[in-house]
């Protein structure tokens, strides 16, 4: 067998960008406000091809929260797609533009540095959940495709509580951790 055909069980089970896109459609997402991270390129290519989605690229993650607040005020359904590093940069914007304005929005956050065995060497991972807890933001960990239903749970909770809810994408669409 050629090496590039060897696929681990973890990779077979990985959260696929197609599944993420299905979850977006199922939950009525109209706009994805995003800043790329190293693992979202496949998702980007899929999103770009969908006529029901508008992609709004920002260049600093804090701007994603105020953008999403405007989209939600206009009656549409934004999704924020960023990495945990950018999430931490966004603290005041998240506070003022989403928590302070009762904006129901799901944040899909690439969980850079997360490891299944719990020993991480990346402070981006060290502080991610602590950061969310400091703001009282509920979050759901999505490790692989079998967890994808948690994305819909997050949408339901955001709508019910009129607050941001995070989905931590722990395997960043590839199954390597």
């Amino acid at each position, binding site marked *: 067998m050629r090496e590039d055909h060897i696929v681990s069980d973890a990779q077979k089970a990985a959260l696929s960008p197609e599944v993420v896109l299905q979850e977006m459609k199922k939950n009525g997402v109209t706009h994805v406000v995003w800043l790329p991270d190293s693992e979202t390129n496949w998702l980007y290519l899929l999103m770009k091809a969908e006529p029901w989605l508008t992609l709004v690229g920002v260049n600093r993650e804090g701007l994603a929260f105020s*953008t999403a607040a*405007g989209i939600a005020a*206009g009656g549409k359904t934004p999704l924020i797609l960023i990495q945990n590093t950018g999430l931490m940069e966004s603290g005041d914007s998240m506070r003022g533009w989403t928590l302070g304005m009762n904006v129901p929005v799901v944040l899909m956050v690439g969980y850079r540095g997360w490891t299944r065995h719990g020993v991480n060497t990346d402070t981006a991972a060290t502080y991610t959940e602590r950061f969310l807890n400091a703001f009282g933001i509920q979050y759901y960990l999505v490790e692989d495709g079998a967890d994808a239903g948690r994305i819909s749970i997050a949408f339901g909770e955001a709508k019910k509580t009129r607050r941001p809810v995070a989905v931590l994408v722990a395997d960043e669409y590839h199954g390597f951790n």
Partner: protein
Amino acid sequence: MMDTLELLKIYNRYRGDAIVVPGRGGKHWVNISTQPNRDLPLGDPAMGGHASFAMGLALALPQQKIVLFDSDGDIQMGMGILATIAEQQPKNFYHFMLDNECYATTGGQPVPLAKTIAYDVIARACGYPRAYAYDNLETFSINIERILFDPGPVFVALKVKPDIENKPIGSRVKWRKRSQVQVVIDMQKELGIAT
């Protein structure tokens, strides 16, 4: 430099039924506007976000004209949004910026390059198809109708006198009559937006 109150009075003559995000001009605008349910006087949810909020609103409501009165301090904090707006090209977005050359709400300290930065040039370089700058009411009043008639996105830098506040935040006059959440709800009701 223009007086913000007088400038907003001139704009109001040509408002039509636009949705107005008055930004830091809000304390004047709430006393001028005759359509409060089409206003979003949010105060300052978090500095640097007014342009992105208003752009998001414009993308969500393409049939409505969205007018923002941004500020120089806000723009400098999130200047990258100009590229995003230029990329999205919302034809219903009218981006005015009150340039008082300082952080008025913290005592009037200057913003970087307060006297020399050319915001209209930056906006045009980012890709806004139209960008203007005015420093007196006469030329502003001559041009405002045409600016609002043509499609957006348009950027208009306006030199205004600073309304410097030096009191502790807790002892300042509260000009907002409704909460941030309430103004959004009122606008949504006005436009028949179900949430």
